[in-house]
Structure formats: structure tokens, C-alpha cells
């Protein structure tokens, strides 16, 4: 059964990064893998400090990736921020039947939209925002529906 395991300050401990790293496959490229490891360790520390909430996408057999979300604002507009999104190397760019023939990254972004709409309904929210790591990812996020914020590299979806 497909599920999103939620980690926040109440259930995350010092082993979180170890557990997550042991269940996900980093990039084959060693430099990229090292960057990913640093990001994941940092994100897990932020989870422990209540700075972000991490949702690990998995089923009985596999762990596909995760998304980390936090409350933010862009100028004065309340926003939900994608702190980090990670897809296991084995599942990158692949539409999975288990995810309704959707790519893991798309599935996680759509999940973030669902969370954003729930927050919007409860307390008000205007945008889902993220900062792509590179130009290639910016193109990927454009296809998903994100718009570029003028000269800034930040991207957003209006809710």
C-alpha cells in the first residue's frame, strides 16, 4: 500500500538521516551523491528542530523518494515552501504504475499542492514556492506548472 510516512520533530531522532539514506539510492555520480547526502543530512536536522516536515513516499517493497515542506513567505505573501525534494536514483524520470502512471517528482509536488490547499483552507496561503537547483530542474518544474518569478530564480504555483 502506497503511503507517505511523515517525519516531524515529534517522531524524528538522530537516526533519521541514516534510516533515510539506507532506503534511498543516491546518484551514481559520486559528486552528486555527496551533495545529496549533505542535503539529506541537513534536512533531517531541520526536521528534528521543527524547521521542516519530511514525507517519505514508499510502499511495502520500495522507497521512492521524499519531499520536505515548511511554512514561508515570499515578500508579504504567505507560502508553502518546498525545502527539498529527492527521488531515488532508480525511479528518476520514470512514470510508475504504482503512482498512477506519474513520475515520483510529479507525485510529490502534487502532494505538496494538496497540503498547500489544506493549509490555505485553514489559515490562508497564496503560493507554493521552490528554488530549483539548476536550469534543467527549472525546465522540469515549468512542465509541472511552476512559473518563474521574474529575475529571481524562485518559482511558484499560485493556489
Amino acid at each position, binding site marked *: 500500500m502506497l503511503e507517505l510516512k511523515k517525519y516531524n520533530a515529534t517522531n524524528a531522532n538522530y537516526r533519521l538521516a541514516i534510516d533515510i539514506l539506507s532506503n534511498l539510492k543516491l546518484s551514481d555520480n559520486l559528486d552528486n551523491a555527496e551533495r545529496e547526502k549533505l542535503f539529506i543530512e541537513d534536512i533531517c536536522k531541520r526536521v528534528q528542530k521543527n524547521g521542516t516536515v519530511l514525507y517519505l513516499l514508499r510502499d511495502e517493497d520500495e522507497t521512492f523518494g521524499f519531499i520536505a515542506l515548511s511554512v514561508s513567505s515570499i*515578500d508579504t505573501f504567505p507560502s508553502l515552501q518546498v*525545502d527539498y*525534494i529527492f527521488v531515488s536514483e532508480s525511479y528518476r524520470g520514470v512514470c510508475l504504475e504504482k503512482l498512477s502512471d506519474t513520475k515520483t517528482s510529479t507525485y510529490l509536488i502534487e502532494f505538496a499542492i494538496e497540503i498547500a490547499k489544506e493549509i490555505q483552507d485553514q489559515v490562508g496561503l497564496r503560493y507554493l514556492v521552490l528554488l530549483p537547483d539548476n536550469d534543467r*530542474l527549472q525546465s522540469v518544474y515549468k512542465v509541472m*506548472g511552476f512559473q518563474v518569478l521574474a529575475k529571481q530564480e524562485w518559482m*511558484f*504555483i499560485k*493556489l
Partner: protein
Amino acid sequence: MALIIQDKQVVYIAPPVKLTKDEKKVLENASVNHKLIKKATSRKYKIV
């Protein structure tokens, strides 16, 4: 993503706190992608 690496350290990047008039216009005049939101919110997500 809001993390970058500088000098082998992870650095957190916050969204801009002050936008230009043009940037604000881009934000405020953006259209809502109802099709995308409907697709995203019609799926059942099991959070555990």
C-alpha cells in the same frame, strides 16, 4: 529546493523578502492552474 552548498557547507536560502513592483505583478497576475490543482487534490494520499 531552498538549499545550496557553499564551501562544502549546506546553506539555507530563504525566498526574497522584498520584491520589485514588476515581480509583485508577476505573482499577483499569475493565473491559478485549476486543472493541476484539481488533479493534485482529487488523489487520495495515505499519510502515516
